[in-house]
Structure formats: structure tokens, C-alpha cells
């Protein structure tokens, strides 16, 4: 078989093409140690990745390298993600790096997940182990660095919110080799030597390495076994440490930790006013009840009842009186009728009544009625009473009935 001659470029290009078809080499992560690191003035970075047995050339173009946050130097253990290709001009087999991270970080993440799983299985994060956070703590222990924003945030909230809570700050290193032991010592101090009824553990945000003290098993154990409730406020919203999981309450930031720890004066004032209102209302209600009871039994009511009894007797008496009156009137009326009848019959027999019929009565001057002729003498003055007056006369003659016939 006759071989076709190829140019160097054709060979290199062909190899490059072959590599580009490979699904694995197209996107890989390679772990190794950096050597010969050069950040070129063009912005591209050139280096070699090596491990105990091999090495590979790497290039990271400026558009990727400029996105990298950490700085790198020879000897750093890194993870590089990218693709394998060939630089045609030099026939150079190399890794085109798109992302680079320090490998140690990844190791910490793995360690974090392992520890988390381990403590979760031990039941350290269970709700039943969470101690109740006191509503009105008297004294709060604060475990934090006495440098940095976290303590300032906490104290600022503290001063703004409540005048009723005292605080004891136990300054500790929150990162570095001493941090874990100092934090544990602080928890023990508050548990054994003070009367704080709540602990806040806090620090500002940082990388997983910065926050690592809060993932240390000795710290996790200490938080779990604390007799005093602990609120964690480590890092920012998105930062989680094992202390956050094992603490009795997790606050997203240092300020938030301080805020959940103490009820504000305003809230307390509202609560107090509400209690007062309720007290007064209940008391008024009670008074009204008692007043009603009293009214039911009051002297007034007794008197009214008595008066009713008396009034009834009065009424009886009045009835009797009325009847007596009626009887009396009847008697009087009967007497009056009788009297009137008497008068009537009397009138009937009145001699004066006769005068109206044309009769008259004749009397002498002594007003004695003249009944027979012998009662007068000739020349004597006599009076005759008629119906409507008197007539005076003189006796001229006396004639007896016998003579007159």
C-alpha cells in the first residue's frame, strides 16, 4: 500500500480533528499541580499541570482567565476544566482550560458533606433536640470576633431594639488554627460560669475555609451538648455551616441572629398595653356583673316591694271606706226621700194653697182667724188674706145664717 505524503501541518490538523471528535477529551476535568505558571501580558495564562507520573501543557485564554477569582502560583493543586486539542503550529498537545479551581476547596466541600451526613445520621439536627429559645432573655452571651462587622451589627441591633437585655461578649478567633478551641471554650464558659440564658454564635461571611471552624466536629459536639440554647448567625444567607444545622435556631446573618434573640421594646410595649386593656375590660365586666347582682338585691327594690304591700292595704282600706260611704249615702238618700214625701204631703195640706182657689182667710188685728160671727163686732177692723195680699175692712153688719135665710 502506497502511503500519501503529508505535510506537517496536515498531520497536526488531522490529529486535532480526531481529538475534537472524541466525546471525553472534549470536556474534561484534570487534577494536578501547577508549574511554570506564566501570566502573559496578553492576559492569557500558560502553565503545566503535573502529577507524580506525567505532565501536560495548559493554556487559559484571557476571556476565561479574567473570570478566575483566586490567584494561582506554582505548586498549587488545582482542578482544570476544558478540552484537549493540538496547537497545530507547534504540534503541541495541550489542555485548553476554561475553569480552574483550587483542588483543596473541593476537598473541604467533600469533607463538609461527609460530616453533615455523619451528624445527620447521629440525629444531631433533629427537631426534638432543639432547645426552646427564651422569649425574653435576661442576658445573652455572644461568641464572635471582637474585630469585624459581625459584632458591630449585633451590638447595633442590640442597642436599637431592647433596653431590657444585657449582653456578655466572649471574643474568639473565628478562623484559623485557634478558632475551634476558642469557640468551644467560649461555649463552656457560658454554660458553666455565667447566667446567660441564650448564646449567639456569629461571624461574617467568607469562603468555606474561612468558615471552617464552624464545621469542626469539636465545635459541632459542643453546640449540640450546650445546655444553653444557641442561635447561629454565621456568614451570609447562602453560607451554611454544620453549626447552623446543629444550633437550636439558625439566623441567616449576624444582625438577624441578634434580632431573633431579643424582642424589641416596641413589641413588648404593645403586648403590655394589650394586657392592660384586657385587664381593664375584664374588671369593668366584673363590676357590671356585681352591680347587676347588687341591683337585684338592693334596698330600693326591698322598699318598693314593701311599699307595694302597704299600697295594697291602703287600697283595701279605701275599698272598705268607699263601701261604707255608699251604704251611708243610701241611708241618707232613703231619709231624704222620706222627707221629701213628707214635705209633699205637707204642701198638699197647706191652707195657703186654698187661697189660690179663691178662698180667703179673715183675721182680727191680733191675727186670730175669724171662724164665726161671734168672733167680730160691728165697726171692728179686720184683715182678709187673699192669694196675693191683704185687704183691710170694717165690719158693717153681722148676719147669722138663720137670719140670712
Amino acid at each position: 500500500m502506497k502511503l500519501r505524503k503529508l505535510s506537517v501541518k496536515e498531520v497536526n490538523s488531522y490529529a486535532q480533528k480526531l481529538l475534537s471528535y472524541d466525546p471525553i477529551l472534549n470536556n474534561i476535568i484534570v487534577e494536578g499541580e501547577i508549574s511554570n505558571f506564566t501570566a502573559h501580558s496578553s492576559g492569557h495564562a500558560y502553565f503545566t499541570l503535573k502529577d507524580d507520573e506525567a505532565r501536560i501543557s495548559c493554556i487559559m485564554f484571557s476571556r476565561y482567565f479574567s473570570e478566575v477569582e483566586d490567584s494561582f502560583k506554582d505548586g498549587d493543586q488545582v482542578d482544570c476544566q476544558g478540552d484537549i486539542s493540538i496547537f497545530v503550529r507547534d504540534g503541541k498537545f495541550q489542555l485548553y482550560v476554561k475553569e480552574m479551581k483550587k483542588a483543596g476547596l473541593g476537598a473541604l466541600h467533600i469533607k463538609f458533606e461527609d460530616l453533615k451526613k455523619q451528624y445527620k445520621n447521629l440525629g444531631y439536627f433533629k427537631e426534638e433536640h432543639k432547645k426552646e429559645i427564651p422569649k425574653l432573655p435576661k442576658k445573652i452571651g455572644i461568641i464572635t470576633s471582637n474585630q469585624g462587622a459581625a459584632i458591630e451589627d449585633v451590638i447595633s441591633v442590640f442597642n436599637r431594639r431592647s433596653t431590657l437585655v444585657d449582653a456578655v461578649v466572649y471574643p474568639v478567633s473565628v478562623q484559623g488554627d485557634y478558632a475551634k478551641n476558642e469557640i468551644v471554650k467560649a461555649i463552656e464558659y457560658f454554660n458553666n460560669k455565667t447566667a446567660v440564658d441564650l448564646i449567639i454564635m456569629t461571624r461574617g461571611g467568607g469562603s468555606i475555609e474561612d468558615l471552617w471552624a464552624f464545621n469542626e466536629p469539636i465545635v459541632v459536639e459542643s453546640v449540640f451538648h450546650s445546655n444553653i440554647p444557641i442561635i447561629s448567625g454565621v456568614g451570609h444567607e447562602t453560607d451554611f455551616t454544620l453549626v447552623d444545622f446543629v444550633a437550636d435556631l439558625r439566623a441567616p446573618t449576624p444582625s438577624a441572629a441578634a434580632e431573633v434573640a431579643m424582642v424589641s421594646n416596641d413589641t413588648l410595649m404593645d403586648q403590655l398595653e394589650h394586657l392592660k386593656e384586657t385587664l381593664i375590660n375584664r374588671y369593668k365586666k366584673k363590676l357590671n356583673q356585681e352591680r347587676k347582682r347588687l341591683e337585684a338585691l338592693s334596698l330600693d327594690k326591698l322598699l318598693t316591694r314593701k311599699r307595694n304591700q302597704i299600697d295594697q292595704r291602703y287600697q283595701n282600706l279605701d275599698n272598705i271606706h268607699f263601701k261604707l260611704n255608699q251604704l251611708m249615702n243610701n241611708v241618707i238618700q232613703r231619709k231624704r226621700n222620706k222627707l221629701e214625701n213628707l214635705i209633699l204631703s205637707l204642701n198638699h195640706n197647706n191652707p195657703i194653697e186654698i187661697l189660690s182657689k179663691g178662698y180667703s182667710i179673715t183675721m182680727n188685728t191680733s191675727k186670730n182667724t175669724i171662724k164665726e160671727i161671734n168672733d167680730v163686732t160691728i165697726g171692728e177692723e179686720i184683715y182678709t188674706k187673699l192669694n196675693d195680699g191683704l185687704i183691710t175692712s170694717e165690719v158693717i153688719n153681722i148676719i147669722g145664717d138663720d137670719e140670712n135665710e
Partner: protein
Amino acid sequence: MSKTFEENIKSLEEIVKALEADNSNLDESMKAFEKGIKLYNECNDLLKNAENKIEVLNEKNEE
């Protein structure tokens, strides 16, 4: 100081509860009410006049 506050609040709540229960007589109710108002005033004073204290431990304290 806040312990007193919390205790006062608790007592106040108990008094309110007792007043609601109907079994106390007027004398008791009056006394309870007076005590409640006194507790309220104390709490109010505590809230208004209290000043929080912040103590930072030093090496000596920690020993």
C-alpha cells in the same frame, strides 16, 4: 431586671385570666385589678427606664 419584667408579665397574664374566671368575689377582683395595674406600671417603668449593659470579657474573665 428583665427577669422581673418577664415575671411581672406572667403575673399580669394570670391576673387577667383570674378576672375572667367568674368565681372570684368583688373584693378579690378589686384587689386583683389594683395589683394588675401596679404590675403594668412597673413593667412600663422597666421598659422606659431600663438600660442594657454590654460587657466584653477579657483574658482575666475567661480564666
